[in-house]
């Protein structure tokens, strides 16, 4: 094998092993920065040795053993230094001794849930969701800060800052990098799921022709979801989120027209929906429901996505089921936008009057003041109820509120269709 090829193979191996390596090391040294440095040093050692010896049979274990040896050396060095500083020496020496011993005994430890522990640490709620997403992509996804910055349409320096601060916060908090259990688990898991969905949506919001790293976020989030599902096979909301992402991702190719404009769900060419992802999404939803999680917020959103995925044509959509799902969703995830979508679903299931009846309450709440989709929905209900003059006013109002030129044109066109 040519030297450059060997080099590339080693780097690919490292890419595959990196997250687990950092996870195992972070649990030992209780510090992400140091764990990353140790992992990087192990790569440098591998780049020096593997071209001569060949890539070992279990490269992950080799890298881990190398990095751990280095960590132990580091602790011993610290201990020697400590001896020189007699005034603080005694205490430190004991601690360093204990840590070095802990490392030796941990050498044979099972690597099983270390990656999961790192995911929980990276997504810790003491860090802001944006910083959680950046650090998760860095540590688990192996993206560079430059890639993360491009993905979030941000400056590299901003992302680097965000990661540095997040690591500092986590270090100060004194995390053990263990997988939370019991009571703690639910909140911490919610925080992990939030981050993965945030990463997914960041990719989903990308439009055609943009930097490819943005759509790649969808694939990365789905991979994170699958890793989590494999590690936590009894958590229904994990499967709810996996299902939601798989089904939404199945529409990626159908979601934009040739001109780059977003195509609404009901007008998408369903031939472009990815059937493998739909199948996987439906299977994950079944699993979430079988685990008793049908009423979880992600499972409910997945069930809504599944209603559309199951309909061969837009006309076949089961709007009654969608309306019922929204009735439940607003209980577990109250939000004015959910209420608006619920009104639309009811209008499709039971007629425009049913939709109009639900809108009144939403309009009285201040949250959606100046939100274009609200008058657009009222306009649509009125139009379908044959109240054209009122519908025209509403479409006009919606057109004045939206800042999206394409949407404005669409709404004005609907206003014109109401006649005068």
């Amino acid at each position, binding site marked *: 094998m040519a030297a450059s090829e060997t080099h*590339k*193979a080693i780097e*690919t*191996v490292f*890419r*595959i092993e990196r997250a687990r390596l950092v996870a195992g090391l972070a649990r030992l040294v209780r510090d992400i920065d140091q764990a990353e440095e140790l992992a990087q040093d192990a790569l440098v050692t591998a780049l020096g040795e593997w071209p001569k010896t060949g890539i070992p049979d279990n490269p992950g274990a080799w890298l881990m053993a190398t990095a751990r040896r280095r960590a132990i050396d580091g602790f011993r060095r610290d201990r020697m230094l400590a001896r020189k500083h007699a005034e603080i020496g005694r205490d430190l020496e004991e601690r360093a001794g204990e840590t070095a011993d802990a490392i030796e005994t941990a050498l044979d430890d099972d690597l099983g849930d270390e990656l999961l522990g790192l995911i929980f640490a990276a997504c810790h709620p003491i860090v802001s969701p944006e910083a959680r997403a950046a650090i998760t992509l860095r540590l688990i996804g192996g993206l560079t800060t430059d890639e993360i910055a491009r993905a979030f349409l941000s400056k590299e320096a901003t992302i680097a800052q965000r990661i540095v601060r997040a690591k500092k916060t986590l270090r100060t908090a004194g995390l053990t990098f263990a997988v939370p259990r019991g009571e703690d688990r639910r909140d911490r898991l919610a925080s992990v799921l939030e981050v993965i969905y945030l990463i997914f949506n960041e990719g989903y919001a990308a439009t055609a022709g943009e930097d490819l790293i943005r759509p790649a976020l969808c*694939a990365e989030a*789905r*991979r*994170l*979801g*699958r*890793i989590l599902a*494999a*590690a936590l096979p009894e958590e229904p909301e994990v499967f709810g989120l996996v299902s939601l992402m798989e089904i939404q991702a199945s529409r990626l*190719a159908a979601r934009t027209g040739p001109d780059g404009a977003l195509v609404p769900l009901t007008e998408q*060419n*369903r*031939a*472009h*929906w990815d*059937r*493998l992802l*739909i*199948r*996987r999404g439906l299977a994950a939803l079944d699993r979430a429901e079988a685990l008793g999680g049908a009423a979880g917020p992600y499972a409910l959103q997945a069930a809504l996505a599944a209603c559309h995925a199951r309909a*061969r044509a837009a006309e076949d959509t089961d709007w009654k089921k969608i309306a019922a799902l929204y009735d439940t969703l607003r209980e577990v995830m109250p939000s004015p936008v959910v209420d608006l979508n619920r009104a639309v679903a009811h209008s499709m299931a039971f007629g425009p009057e049913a939709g109009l009846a639900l809108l009144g309450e939403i309009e009285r709440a201040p949250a959606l003041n100046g939100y274009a989709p609200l008058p657009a929905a009222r306009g649509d209900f009125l139009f379908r109820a044959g109240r054209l003059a009122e519908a025209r006013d509403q479409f006009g109002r919606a057109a004045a509120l939206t800042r999206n030129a394409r949407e404005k044109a669409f709404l004005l066109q609907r206003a014109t269709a109401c006649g005068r």
Partner: protein
Amino acid sequence: MRVMVFVKATKDSEEGVMPSSALLEEMGRYNEELVNAGIMLAGDGLKPSSQGKRVAFDGPGRAVIDGPFAETRELVAGYWLWEVKDMAEAVEWVKRCPNPMPGPSEIEIRPVYELSDFEEIMTPDAEAIHGRVQDKTKNK
């Protein structure tokens, strides 16, 4: 990117020699690793070609040929569907697979076409038909 990973057939697999329980265990662990890494989408083992059939096409003609088929090395004994970042990653994962056969064997990696690869040759009619076909297979 998606890749299809083919385990090529050997004389043993074509004779229906079942894997040893040790290999079965090793393979199970390997599959578990693929799932844990979040890259595995699907996978199955295939029965020998003696239980398969071929349909030969020649213009309008259709001739059914019963297995087994001769060119063992070109036959497939199993497959996976993976989602990986690039071919290099797929190659590294394949290298970690236990040898699926008692003797020498081969595994082949092929990138899957994406819909966008067909954009230039796909007419709207052809698209609609493909969609209908996929629809009918989706609830299998």
